[in-house]
């Protein structure tokens, strides 16, 4: 990695990223009203940049799938469906007029009826179907794990089955079992989850600070 100190353009990029991140962090811990004002401006700019990135992403997706259709690629049909769905959502969300007290008006928010209807009739059933499939995927994964003979996989499956069985109403009301499960949840499970979270939190802390001080520069062209 070349040092930012030797590259003025990189140094400016690092300073902008570092100072911006530091200001927002200081506002998060309550550094005062002046910092809050600056942080609010920066967060609004970030939201704006994110929105622009989404628009760029939309154009990128549109272009790549249009190319597949034009080249009559093997899965051009899926690309056609994707582009059709994209146009339906864009038209319903932005261009489909709705009746208001003063006449027809374009949708003002994503809570408008046309886009909500599209989501209710198309997206929600699809999402629910995929989520429902997860049950069968889980069953198949468990069977595959047991057949594979891997110790950690079998252990996970056995613990999952025990957890399911012990939560059956008939068993959960038995005092010893109920208390034992509660103890396991309060101590063993919580300890494991907290250990995982601690490690991840420290990793996130180090990753964030390295961004602030310019050790990592995913935004720079170096």
């Amino acid at each position, binding site marked *: 990695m070349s040092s930012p100190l030797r590259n003025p353009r990189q140094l400016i990029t690092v300073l902008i990223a570092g100072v911006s991140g530091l200001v927002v962090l200081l506002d998060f811990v*309550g550094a005062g009203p002046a910092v809050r004002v600056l942080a609010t401006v920066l967060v609004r700019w970030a939201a704006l940049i994110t929105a622009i990135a989404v628009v760029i992403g939309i154009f990128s997706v549109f272009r*790549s799938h249009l190319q597949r259709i034009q080249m009559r690629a093997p899965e051009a049909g899926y690309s056609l469906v994707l582009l059709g769905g994209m146009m339906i959502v864009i038209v319903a969300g932005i261009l489909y007029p709705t009746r208001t007290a003063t006449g027809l008006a374009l949708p003002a928010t994503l809570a408008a009826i046309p886009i909500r209807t599209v989501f209710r009739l198309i997206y929600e059933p699809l999402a629910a179907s995929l989520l429902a499939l997860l049950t069968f995927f889980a069953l198949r994964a468990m069977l*595959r794990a047991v057949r594979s003979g891997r110790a950690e996989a079998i252990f996970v499956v056995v613990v999952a089955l025990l957890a399911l069985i012990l939560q059956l109403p008939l068993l959960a009301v038995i005092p010893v079992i109920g208390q034992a499960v509660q103890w396991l949840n309060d101590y063993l499970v919580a300890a494991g989850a907290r250990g995982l979270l601690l490690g991840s939190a420290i*990793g996130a*802390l*180090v*990753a964030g600070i*390295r961004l602030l001080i310019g*050790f*990592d520069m995913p935004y720079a062209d170096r």
Partner: protein
Amino acid sequence: MTLPAIFFIIILVLVVALIWLHYARVQAGRVPERRPLPALEVLRAALARSAETGRPVHLSPGASTIGAGEGQRASTAELLAGLNIIGRAAEQAAAGGASIVVSSADAVAHLALRGVVRQSYRSFGQEQSFDPRQIELWAHGDAMAYTAAVAAIYARTPLEASLLAGAFAQEVLLTAETGAERMVPQVLGSTHPSALSLMAITTPHTLIGEEIYAAEAYLTPTATPQARLLTHDALRTVVVWLMLIAFGYGFFRIAFGWPALAGW
């Protein structure tokens, strides 16, 4: 300035000092031994094979997004970890002539990935081999849609291997089980406990929790990632010692009549 802000600045200065200290230590050649991460050896081997077979390796920072949406858990840190891993994997791909396909579930991550992968190819003088069409945006802000897209790619494109390391929840099962059924070697990593248990039963190659932050150091010998890993280990040691001291204090305080710590 409030007390939490002052405390935060002190911690920030200490962590920055630790990072610089470990960077100097690595530059001086003092890198301790560390335990192996077999999952990353699978990724390295797949990248090497890809150069011969021509089958691409799929790389993904997971369904990570910048910032937290309403009701969502923030996954920016996992995204950064995924970007680092993909950057190093792309370097290996550029050096060895392997083929990669990079996907993401966030528009900002998509743009960051394009920059990171291009930089990786440029660092090995292979910028002419970089094709922006290698980096694809398959969904935005919808983890379920993204995992469905990955599962579809498993079904359509013969892959040498697939790396998904970042923010995942239960929906990863859709992808992982499809990959297991099609015998795609998968390296899966997440910090979410529910995703990890599903990953453990679908693939033998997992990166558990903080291992996704450590992975970059295993993929390259350069000083910066090694320093990150050492800093991570040092901070973890500090936290463990603090917990042990607090436990010991709590254990003896009743016997000796010591006051309770704040927050107890």
